[in-house]
Each structure stands twice: as C-alpha cells, then as structure tokens.
C-alpha cells in the first residue's frame, strides 16, 4: 500500500459495517416508534459520529435535512456537554430549532459510544414528533412561543435512568404524550443497539477507536467530492425563485461560486425574515444546500463529513434563511425545500446535463384534529408529494418526494385515525411541465368530513402561485390549489371543516426539461397509451399528428 494507514480492503469492510450499523439502528427505530410520522412516513435519521461530532455514516433511505444538520447540532451540543461529561447510557436531548433542524417538532438526541472506558464516538438521532404543543402546526404563528414546548439541551437520560421531571414536562405540554414518549423510547433502543455494534466491530478488528477509520473515510470522500467539483467550470452562478409566502411572495436568491475544488453557496439578497412561520434556520439551509450539491456531483459515495468539507454556505442574518430568535419557524420546509431548485437553477449554466428542473415541492401535508361527540380525541397528519422535475434523459416521476423523503400514509390507515373519507387520490393528467423530458405529474386528493363535529385543519402547502420552473425550453409545472367546498382558500391559515365539508387539494407538478418539440415520438405515444397525456395536449405541445386510437392498440 502506498498510502499509510488503513488498506483499502479493510477500509471497505469497516465502512460498510459503519453504514450497516446505522441501518440496523434505523430498523430498530421504525419497529419501536409510536407515531405514524416516524413509522409510516419515516421522518427520522440516525447518524454515527466521531468524538468531535463529525458524521461518519447514516442510514440510507432517510431525511436529507436531518442528516445534513445533525453534525452541526451535535458539535454545538458537545460544547455544552463536553465529551468527558458523558457516562454510558446517557442521552442528551433538545428540540431547539437554532441548534437543531429548524423547528420544535424535531427532537435530536445524542448518546455516547463507549469502548471499554473511552468514548469512541456518538450516535445522533433526530425524529419528528407528531405534536410539540402550541398551535396546531401552521405557518400562521407569530413567534416561536406560539409553536409549543421549547426543550433546551438537557440530559434526558443519565446512565440509563430517564429524568422523570423532564419527561413530565414534555408529557404535560404535548397533545399526544404516548406518541412523543414512545418515540423517545425508540431513540434509546436505536442508540443502544448502535453502540453495541460499534463495540463489537472494534473488538473484531482490534481497533482502539474510530479515529483512523473516520479520518480515512473523510479524506476519501472529500477527495471524491473535490474531484467532482473540479470538473465544474469555475464561475459565479446566480438564480432566484419566488415562493408564495404567507400573503406576499418571498424571494430566495443565491450565488453559487465555484473555485477549483470548492463551492460557496451565498444567499445574499434573500427576503428578510418574516413574522410568520416561514423562516428556515441556517442548519437546515446548510443541510439542503450540501445535499443538493452531493446529489449533483457525488451521489454514489456514501455521505459523511468529507462531502461537506468543500462546501461553505452563508445567508444574511435576519433573512428567511437565517432568522434571529425568537422568529416563528414551524413551516420552515415551505422555504427551505426550495433550496435544491434554486441551486439547480443557478448551476444549470455550468452543468446542464446534471441538473433537474424544479419539482412540485415542498411536500404538502394536512393536519387534522378534533374531539368527537364521545369525547375521543383524534389527531393525525398525512403527507402528499408533487411531481418530480425532469432532467436530461429522464422524465420526472409523478408524486415522488423530493427533496424531502416522506412516504404517504395509506388511505385505509388514515381513515382509521381521523373521521375523514378520501374520495379520490389520483395523478393529475397533463399537469407535468412539457418538454423533451416531461415533469412529473402532481396529484389531486379529495377529502370529505364524515365527522359530526368540527375538525380543525392546517396545511403545509406551497407553489399555489409560483410554479416549478422548467429548464432549457421545458415548460413550468402546474401550480397547486386548495379549495374548501369549491372555494379557493389560503392554505397557510388554519381552517375549520364542518360536517359534510369537502376539501380538494391539488399538489403541484414538476417542470419539464428541453424543448417539447424534441420529445421522441414513441415517448409521446407511450404517455398517450398510459393515459398520462391527452390527445389535445399531444397535438398542441408536441405537434403529434398520429391517431390516438391506433397507438392505443394494446
């Protein structure tokens, strides 16, 4: 071996093992979690970190925003709780949005991994709680105090014993204490399992700690990321997108500066922070910025600290992408999930074949709660995803979560949790932006109240006025829409659904890529056959002159 340190074969084995440990821990969490948010929609992440709080590995199918912000959270927590203050089976917990992922619902825990008497690393877990008290999650809030319980960093568990006072405080503040406490139990289960597995690995390979393997993993990954960035032409690439905002549109402006093997992402010029829950803290902004660049340049190398090192992210303090405490933040995904589309927009001049047109995101959600006539409390939330943006050689996929990774809740499960009847959940035909490659379609969901009492409703929704853009001649996607009993409503506010009311949500679709004139005829015919394209649109957008019935031969 030319390089000193770990040989590439041992490295591959240890690296796979460290990823597998995070995966195994994630499985344990899914199986032990109590909320649909964790177990059905998988809104959580497990990250294995070194003693300095740098990410070594994480479970595969997970939340990009959690994975990217976690190391920042953990490093701040380690300043408050230094390494030497930990005992085995300790667990530090917080939901501070500025330390964590940007809103109170996300609880981040930190547990040490001991090998004999020494701490060799940490396991970090973030999961989204169904409820954190305060106002039912809605961007309507005016400050952080309306959003619910704030839990500053604390030792939730000391040597295996949960602090009963902290638990009581949490339980007293949330609408669904069993779910919130239950999810925290799953943090303990997942953390414990990961620690045991790391210990076994160290023993098997006669290693004292993770330092040398972590250093090598970071170095290799950083090199791979830098090599990939070097291929991007140097320059300053600018772009901006508009979001619906609360009443007034907001602007996210970016300059991506590529120099050699490094990238600076600068959000100067972005809207100042607002007095509604539409502010995203810098941790969250960093996470989605780094994630966007990794997807573009280095998607096959497992993610870790090394991938982050060539990237710097800045946003003006006091803006919607770097708000000051106590700004309201609970709808932070309604701005932060625009980040990939603004970065892709900027870089489309540099790497046109790599970028993707905008997706019909952020992910939408319906939160519904109430108390029925028998005094049974019900509360549930479910998520809806729009169409994916198209890219070179790839049509966007209809109803696919991006940049989040949120599964839908099955209708049959939903109808057991809340007194709603889903009358329709279907792809909106013709809605994806036309192009040589077509944007993914959005979906329409029609919901009727079966309740005999009023149901409190709030939404997460965006792009009802500002569509997902197309690229290189590709058309924009269709905007979204929310109507209650046929009348359009502002979905950023809270609403009340009366018995028999009908709600229609149309989730936006993705933008197209390339000139529609260049779309291959067999692709047009396939879309006609699959019913995803109408003959009218085929003729108007793609100059299709064929006979529909002939192409519908099977």
């Amino acid at each position, binding site marked *: 071996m030319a390089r000193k340190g770990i040989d590439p074969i041992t490295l591959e084995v240890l690296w796979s093992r460290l990823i597998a440990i995070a995966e195994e821990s994630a499985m344990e969490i899914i199986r*032990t979690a109590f909320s649909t948010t964790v177990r059905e929609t998988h809104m959580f992440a497990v990250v294995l970190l070194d003693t300095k709080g740098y990410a070594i590995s994480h479970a595969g199918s997970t939340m990009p925003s959690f994975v990217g912000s976690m190391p920042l959270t953990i490093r701040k927590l380690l300043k408050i709780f230094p390494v030497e203050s930990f005992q085995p089976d300790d667990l530090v917990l917080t939901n501070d949005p500025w330390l964590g992922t940007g809103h109170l619902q996300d609880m981040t825990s930190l547990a040490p991994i001991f090998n004999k008497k020494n701490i060799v690393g940490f396991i970090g877990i973030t999961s989204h709680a169904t409820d954190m008290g305060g106002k039912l999650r809605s961007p309507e809030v005016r400050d952080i105090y309306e959003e619910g319980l704030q839990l500053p960093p604390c030792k939730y568990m000391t040597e295996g014993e949960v602090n009963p006072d902290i638990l009581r405080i949490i339980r007293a503040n949330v609408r669904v204490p069993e779910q919130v406490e239950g999810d925290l139990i799953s943090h303990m289960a997942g953390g414990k399992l990961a620690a045991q597995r790391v210990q076994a690995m160290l023993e098997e390979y006669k290693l004292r700690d993770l330092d040398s393997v972590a250093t090598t993993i970071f170095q290799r990954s950083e090199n791979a990321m830098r090599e990939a960035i070097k291929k991007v032409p140097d320059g300053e690439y600018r772009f901006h997108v508009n979001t619906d905002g609360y009443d007034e549109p907001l602007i996210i402006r970016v300059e991506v500066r590529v120099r050699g093997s490094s990238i600076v992402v600068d959000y100067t010029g972005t809207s100042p922070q607002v007095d509604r829950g539409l502010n995203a803290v810098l941790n969250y902004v960093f996470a989605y910025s780094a994630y966007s660049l990794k997807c573009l340049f280095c998607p096959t190398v497992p993610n870790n600290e090394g991938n982050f090192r060539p990237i710097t992210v800045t946003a003006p303090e006091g803006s919607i992408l770097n708000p000051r405490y106590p700004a309201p933040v609970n709808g932070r995904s309604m701005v932060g999930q625009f980040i990939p589309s603004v970065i892709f927009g900027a870089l489309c001049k540099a790497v046109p074949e790599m970028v993707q047109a905008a997706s019909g995101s952020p992910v939408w959600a319906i939160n519904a709660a109430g108390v029925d006539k028998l005094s049974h409390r019900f509360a549930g939330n479910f998520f809806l995803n729009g169409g994916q943006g198209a890219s070179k050689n790839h049509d966007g996929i209809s109803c696919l979560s991006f940049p989040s990774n949120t599964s839908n809740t099955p209708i049959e499960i939903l109808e057991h949790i809340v007194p709603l009847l889903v009358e329709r959940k279907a792809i909106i035909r013709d809605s994806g932006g036309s192009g040589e490659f077509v944007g993914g379609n959005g979906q329409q969901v029609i919901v009727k109240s079966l309740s005999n009492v009023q149901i409190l409703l709030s939404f997460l929704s965006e792009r009802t006025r500002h569509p997902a853009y197309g690229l290189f001649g590709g058309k924009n996607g269709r905007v979204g829409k929310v109507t209650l009993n046929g009348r359009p409503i502002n979905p950023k506010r809270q609403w009340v659904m009366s018995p028999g009311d009908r709600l229609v949500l149309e989730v936006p679709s993705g933008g197209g890529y390339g000139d529609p004139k260049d779309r291959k005829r067999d692709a047009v015919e396939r879309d006609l056959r*699959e019913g995803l394209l109408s003959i009218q649109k085929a003729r108007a957008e793609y100059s299709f002159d064929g006979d529909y019935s002939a192409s519908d031969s099977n």
Partner: protein
Amino acid sequence: MVAAIDIGGTFTDVVIYDKGSGKSLVGKYLTTPHDPSIGALAGLRALLDEFGLRFKELSQAIHATTLATNAIIERKGATTGLITTKGFVDILLIGRESRYDIYDLVPEFPEPLVPMSMRREITERISGTGEILQPLSPQEVKVTIQELVDKGVNSIAVCLLHSYINPEHEETIAESIAEFFPDVSFSLSSQVCPEIREYERTSTTVANAYIQPIVSRYLEDLEANLDDVPLYLMLSNGGIATAQSAAKIPIRMIESGPAGGALAAAYFGAQSGFEDLIAFDMGGTTAKTCIIEKSIPHFTFNFEIARVKRFKKNSGLPIQVPCIDLIEAGAGGGSIAYVDEMGLLKVGPESQGASPGPACYGLGGDKPTVTDADLLLGYINPAYFLGGMMEIFSEAASQSIRKNIAEPLKSQEVQAAWGIHEVVNETMAAATRIQLSERGNDPRNFTLVATGGAGPVHAFHLARKVGLHRIICPPAAGLASSLGLLTVPFKVDTVDSYVSPLEEVDVERLNTLFAEREKQCYSLLKAAGVKERDIQIERMADISFEGQGYPLSVSIPTGKLKSNHMEVIEKSFRDKYVEAHGRAINNVPLRVFNWRIFGIGPSPTVTFKFANFPTKGSGNPLKGTQRIYLPESKGFRKVNVYNRYLLRPNQKFKGPALVEERETTTVIGSRSSFSVDKNLNLIIEL
C-alpha cells in the same frame, strides 16, 4: 416412494426417497427455461431409469419452482386487468411516494404489472368500519369487465378500498366475471391478501392475477405428464398444498425453492440436536439467509420481488403473503468484483451466472468473480471441481484478479483475492446481523447451516464475523432445497384484519371468525388427504402497542376463547416485545391488527440414506494437503484435505483444514475443530 423436484434458475434437482428404507437417490439436471416441466420430467425419468424404477412406484411428487417468481421478473405473465374503487385507479403508479436512495436524482421504479389501459375504476365505496357508503351497480360492473376483456385481458385483479373488512363488493364482481366470462381468471384482494394498506394489497393481488393463468396451465400440464402421481406444491409459508389449491393463489408459491432450503436447514439442524439456526444458502448468483428458532423458520408477511436495484430495499414490488423470511444477504459465487471510482473494492450485484461464468471456468468470462478469488485462496481444489467433472483454469482467475483488482489497488494478487472473499462475507454478515437483531436474537446461541455450492466455502469466515460458534454442513449441500421438500407438512393459513384495541376485542366475534376459518382449514386439509385427528390448528395475532406500526406476531390460545384470554395474549405479547426490543413499555394499551389461523398436517419423519454418493465404504479420509490462505497468518499455510465421504462419526479433527465433496468444499479455519455425526452432518466448532 416420493419424488421431490426443485426447479431453480440453472439446475433442476431431483430426489427420490423411499419412505420405508430411507434410501435416497439424488440427481442434478440442467433446467429447461422455456418450459421447465420438460427438464423436470426428463430429470425424474433419468433418475428413475438409473435405478430401474418406474413412475408407478411413486406415491407422490412434491414440487418447488421459481416459475412464479421468474414470470414476474421477466414480465412473462398474463395480460392482466385491474379494477379499483372509483378515484383510485392510479394506486400502482403512486405507490408510497418515497425514494429508496436519497442521493439518486433519477431513481427507477418497477413498471406496474398492469398498464394504464387495463386499469378501471368502479363506482362503489366501503368505509373503514365496513359500512357500504356507495353500492355497486351491476350494469357498470358488467360493462367494465367487458371493456377489459375486449382489450385482451385474461386475468383480472380486483382491489377495492377496505375490502379486508367487507369483501362483499369484490365478491359481487367475481360472480359477474364467473357468470359472463368463465374463461377469464380473477383474483380478489380480500382473498389473496385481506390486510390493511391499499398499495401493498393491490400490488400483491395484481401479481397474483398476473401469474395465475400460466401457473395453472403449467401445473395442469405437469400433473398430466406425471402419470397420475399426485402432485403437491411447496408454498412460501413453509407448507405443502395440492397442486389444485396452490393454483388458486399462486403468489403463495413465490420463493418456494428457497423456502424448501430453509426447512432443510431446520431439519438437518434438529437431527444433530440444534434448534436455533441460521440457514445460509449461497449459490451462483445470490446468497440467502433465514433465521430459524426452535426449528421453526422466521416468518414475514411483507415480501418484495423484482427489485430494480438488487441490493436496494424498497426498489421492488411489495408482496404481502405469509412467507418464510428469506433475505437476499449478498452475492453468489458468480458475482463480479470490481474497483469503484473511489478506489474501493466492491463485489456484485452483477453476476456472471453459469454462463459465461467465472474467469476460471474458461468459458469466455474474463471478469473476476467470487469463485475466482476462492480458487486463488486455495479454498477450491481445481482438480476436484464438481467432483473433477469440470476443468478449471487457475491462471485465468489469477490474471483476471491481477488485472482488474490487484493492479488498480496497488496490492498483491493474494490480498486482492482475500479482499473479495472478505467483502462478500462482510455484506452477508451485515444482513445477517440485521436479521438477528430484528428479533433481538443473540448470535452466540445460533448455529450456521451452510448449503449451496458456495455456502460451505464462505461459512467459516462468515460465522466468525457474526460471532457464531458452530457450523453444520449437511450432506448433499447442493441439493438441500429438494431434500427440504420431503420434510414439509401440509399447511393452510388464513388471515383476517380486525383492527381493535386488545381490551375492546369482541370475543364472540372472534370465536365466530375462528370457527369459520378453522372449518375452512379442516376441509382444505382433508381434501388433501390429511386425517382429521392429525390436523393441528395454530393461531396468531399481530399486536403492537397502541401507536406502533410494526406488530409482532404472537401465538394465541386455541379453542373457544373467553374474555380472560385477552390477558394471556397481552402477556405473551409483552414477553415477546422485551425479547425483541430489550425494554418493557408500561401503561400503554395494545392494539391488534390481524388474526391468523394455521392448519397443519403431521410432519413427515424422514431419514436420508444416500444411495448414490460417489464413494462408500471405509478408507483413510485424509486425501492429502493443500496450501490455503489463512487470514490469521496473513499468508498461505499447508493444511490437510479430507474426503467428506470417508469421515466417520466420532472422529474429531482440528482446523485449519479443507473437507472436499463432489459439489463443494468446506473451508475450516484456525482455532476450530470438526467432526461428522451419525447423520453425516459435518459439524464445525469455532
């Protein structure tokens, strides 16, 4: 005499077994992919001829086949239609909306088995409590079916919302199909998979409809050619059923061959006195593992087939049928090794298969495979491959690994070969650990049962990694699945979703349900020839704490239940939960989802006496010596090579060593000992 036939991708294995004497004849024949029944019958005939037997002497034939799986993977099923509740025609396209690899901007998903033009909606609606909110129109039903038939559909999947609670509408549609279109087969979700979660249920029902016509035809043909020998099918639930009843829900035959392998492992393990096992079968393209506790293979009710990305979970079509929990743990002997863009060594999932095969086969494959690495490490004897029947080119293996792995990694050829062996084992170890920990099992209590051509080559180092202390290599490792078929009882099962807090379960409703389902099980088993007094009924409930989504399946009492039985059920669940997840949760109520009934016939008692093993009699088992790579010494050492067929019970040997047999070599590392027991199982202690 009973015949067992297991049709795999490359080989068709046949065993003829005499119940009286235990005499077992084994044969391996090439599979005939375009019509696998041809190869199976030819193989059976050849084996019968070899020993001067006739068809007439067979009392039954037990069969496992990859036909159902392959038809889906290769998209060779029937032209299938789908009928859904109005408003939900896109259910197959929408799926669960998440991505299985977050960094891949262009993930691929499997094409639905039913194209859009064959999907139809029906106006109807049933609520979550089973109430009919919108009745069916018979006229609309008929017109809809007619449209599908006009499009050439010959199999229809019907999947309506909440049909797991109230199947009435699905059944009405079925009656209409049967009455007006008797040639069209149909699959109802309330029969194939009556479980909550509409996407997974639809996916399963569609897959069933897709394979039903070809599986039925295949089974009819095979039965016709068997000269009236009764035909039984191995199901994924670990039981066998008559060909006729298997053909009704053919999706339950998915993975039937590997299920046979897991049962063989359970059988051979129990024979040597070990009940907690990990079945490990490693063939040419994949390695599969299954956890067995108290001689019973773990079960799953969520399976996945036809992955677009082989090692990526959730990149395939979900199938919800009771299935022996086999997971694809990693690569096989033919899997290709390469160096990736980061300069790291990777193995699989691409495979060279049997043709062109590993570089050392000399059949034109020039990519380095796992088998090539094993050969360079001395683990495979080139002069005794498939008992010396196949020529092996060591220089080709060496060259391929040197050029493709060692040079790019700037390492020695041997280190590269060891790296391949090690990386493959690491992948399998990771998968095995996850499988064990899902139920909180401690690896030190488990014994690895290694089968398949490459299984015994990799078992030792895999066991060390996982922390196992014992390995069993049964005789005829390459034929384990087909031997397993002979150990399987008749088995039928039912499932009903009745979702409720455990304390609010209506015991009377449950008793009525169980009585009806158990009657159904009895009549199916009796139709297969099982005597009533031999039938055993087992019940399970899928339970979780209120709010959790992944229930544990817990055995519950049989017979007429009383309300105090709910406490017994609660205790069983709590015990099982602590065992699986280590920590008790108090003061949280339980919720039950599904109720399952299993009707099981008697397990056959079998003792195999292999009649056509290549060497019999006595002699010195020590064949000679060979230099093999030992990781502890970071180099080659000369070790003893033993002839498997001449090892006698009670002789104890020390590792490192090799034990050779016709289809495989067992690699035994340092700090270990081994012996064969009276059942000819090779047992390694480490």
